[in-house]
């Protein structure tokens, strides 16, 4: 699994572009930047990237158009669309054009990083005959049963969905927004941090009383399921 990614950022706002570039490079990723649509499309077509971050509103060519052109050309590079337009229809339009994720401005750069990570590495903890295994934790997707270190764990349907989401993103930090979107299909920020409550509930069942915690909190960003601290 690659630790350092090659990322192309197509964004015309200089300050956001600099901010993103700096954060990405700080995280160890190699970042290229294009300031307008045409240059960006050319760059994306010309070189191989792990993730493309494309702003929707660009001079010369809109982000959506770049996305569809890339997809038409057969490029499967994951694309994260950045936008000040946050309506449901905008989101839907973005995903329909071929985007893989959609982040609305203003955003926290941790959110951006977590999502870029998730996109580049692609949920990967594969199912093997419908089962997902991490350390001593076995999850059977067909029978909906969960076992850890030999003990059976009874989960409510929503707890199971949450665990499945974390497992599919094993090793990747997922933010609260991502969890809300991925598990409940919600695109708003609830007034209270209910995600935290769900996570602690899940931890009580899955981590408490076992050899090591699998669900970790990453301060300021979100949560991650992985072996070891």
């Amino acid at each position, binding site marked *: 699994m690659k630790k350092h990614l090659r990322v192309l950022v197509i964004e015309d706002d200089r300050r956001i572009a600099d901010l993103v570039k700096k954060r990405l490079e700080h995280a160890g990723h190699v970042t290229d930047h294009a300031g307008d649509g045409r240059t960006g499309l050319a760059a994306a077509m010309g070189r191989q990237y792990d993730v493309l971050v494309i702003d929707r509103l660009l001079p010369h060519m809109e982000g959506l158009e770049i996305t569809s052109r890339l997809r038409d050309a057969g490029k499967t590079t994951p694309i994260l669309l950045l936008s000040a337009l946050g309506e449901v229809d905008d989101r839907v339009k973005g995903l329909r054009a071929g985007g893989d994720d959609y982040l609305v401005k*203003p955003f926290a750069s941790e959110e951006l990083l977590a999502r870029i990570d998730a996109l580049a590495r692609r949920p990967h903890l594969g199912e093997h005959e419908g089962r997902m295994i991490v350390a001593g934790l076995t999850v059977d997707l067909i029978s909906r049963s969960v076992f850890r270190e030999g003990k059976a764990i009874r989960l409510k349907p929503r707890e199971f969905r949450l665990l499945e989401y974390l497992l599919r993103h094993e090793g990747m930090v997922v933010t609260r927004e991502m969890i809300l979107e991925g598990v409940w299909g919600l695109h708003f920020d609830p007034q209270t941090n*209910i995600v935290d409550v769900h996570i602690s509930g899940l931890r009580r069942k899955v981590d408490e009383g076992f050899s090591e915690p699998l669900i970790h909190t990453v301060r300021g960003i979100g949560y991650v399921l992985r072996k070891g601290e």
Partner: protein
Amino acid sequence: MSFAKANKLRRSTTVRLALALMTLMSVAFLLLGAFLYWGMIQLMERDIWLRLDGELVAAQSLYAGGGMPRLVTHVNERRSRDDPYDEFFFTIADKDCQPIATTDIGLPGDLCEQVLRADGWYHFRYARDDAYARSRPLGTDHMLIAGVLAIEVESARYLMREILTWGLFLGIGLVLIASMLMATSIERRLEPMNRMSRQIRLGNLSSRIPLRNSGDEFDRLAQNLNEMLDEIQRLMDGIRHVADTIAHDLRTPLTVLRGQLEDLRDEPDRHTMAERTAHALADVDRLLAIFAASLRIAQIEAGNRRVGFASIELGDVVAEVVDLYEPLADEKSLSLCVSSMQRCSIDGDRGLVFQAVSNLVDNAMRFAPPRSAVELALDCDEQVARISVSDRGPGIPEHERGKVLEKFYRLDRESGDPGAGLGLSLVAAVAKLHDGGILLEDHRPGLRAILVFQRRVVREKPAKDTEGDTLPS
């Protein structure tokens, strides 16, 4: 007429239509006139043939009665009478076309041959008039040629032409006047609207178009425009209000944030610095959330989101909200339950409805005392769907129930509690978007918040502005 006015008239659709009408009417008039003309001429000519035939028959019976001498006498008598009103002429000729007697010596010499050749009516010009002649045999050796001058027809034709020409001019003149009148009267109805639009463009949003109260199409247009202006004004006021309140409400947190960053800058201890940074970041996140929420509410209120409407099953939404909030209820030792449920679908935006119900449940749980119940209920009839969220908390005093839906309004006890007071105003905006509303009632004790939705949402918003977001109890 000034150049500008002439130009305006040239481009006026009304004038164009009027001119087209005028052309059409003129053509119709002309066609009608031509038809009448032709018909009249036909009629008059037929009359002449009949009379001429009558003369011929009379002459033949004279011949039959008194023989050739009798007829010749008659013809000569007629000639000597020289009646200027007699339009008929006769010639008696032998079988070689030699004239024996005639009423008019001026007739052309070859008349007889021509008439025989024509075999029927022979048409010729005689004394500047049209003339027609035909022949009838008289016994075996002679024949009678009778003819008529078409003076009457000529004068009739002349008269008709005069009438038609004058009629046409009159008609065109009338239509011209009519179209001018029509154009100016329409212009007069449209001008206030154009003037109003210019006013508004210049920034005077409060002007409205005066109505004539005649109920005609211009009045309807004016009314629609006025209502549109009302809505625009309402939205602009809304935006201004949001901008003001946001500015107002963000000034303090931003000042605090600045202070925190100043402390950070001056802080020597690394550990404290990290802590302060974390606090500052949390404050920034809070600010960003306020921005996002305010913007979302404003967008909802602008009402464009109806394009995304689909059929939603409310029972599912309620169940999902409960699913989402149950762990929090457990943590707070509250019981979250659904007291009534049924299958009930509405037209709406699933995400927004979910968020609205979610906000209500969130609020309820925040104020509910431990070990009490937060109840959800879904009731529907044919017209409306009601989702109610009830708690046993302190409730909202009656005088604050209206205000509490305003953006950034916080009840006294809430200050210091993060949330910025936007939750309920979002709920109200969502309800309004779905042509519904929110009711706040006393749960005795506690609060019952009822979200009301119309089951069928009209694409066009209702004409009357629903004042305030709380429906009358």
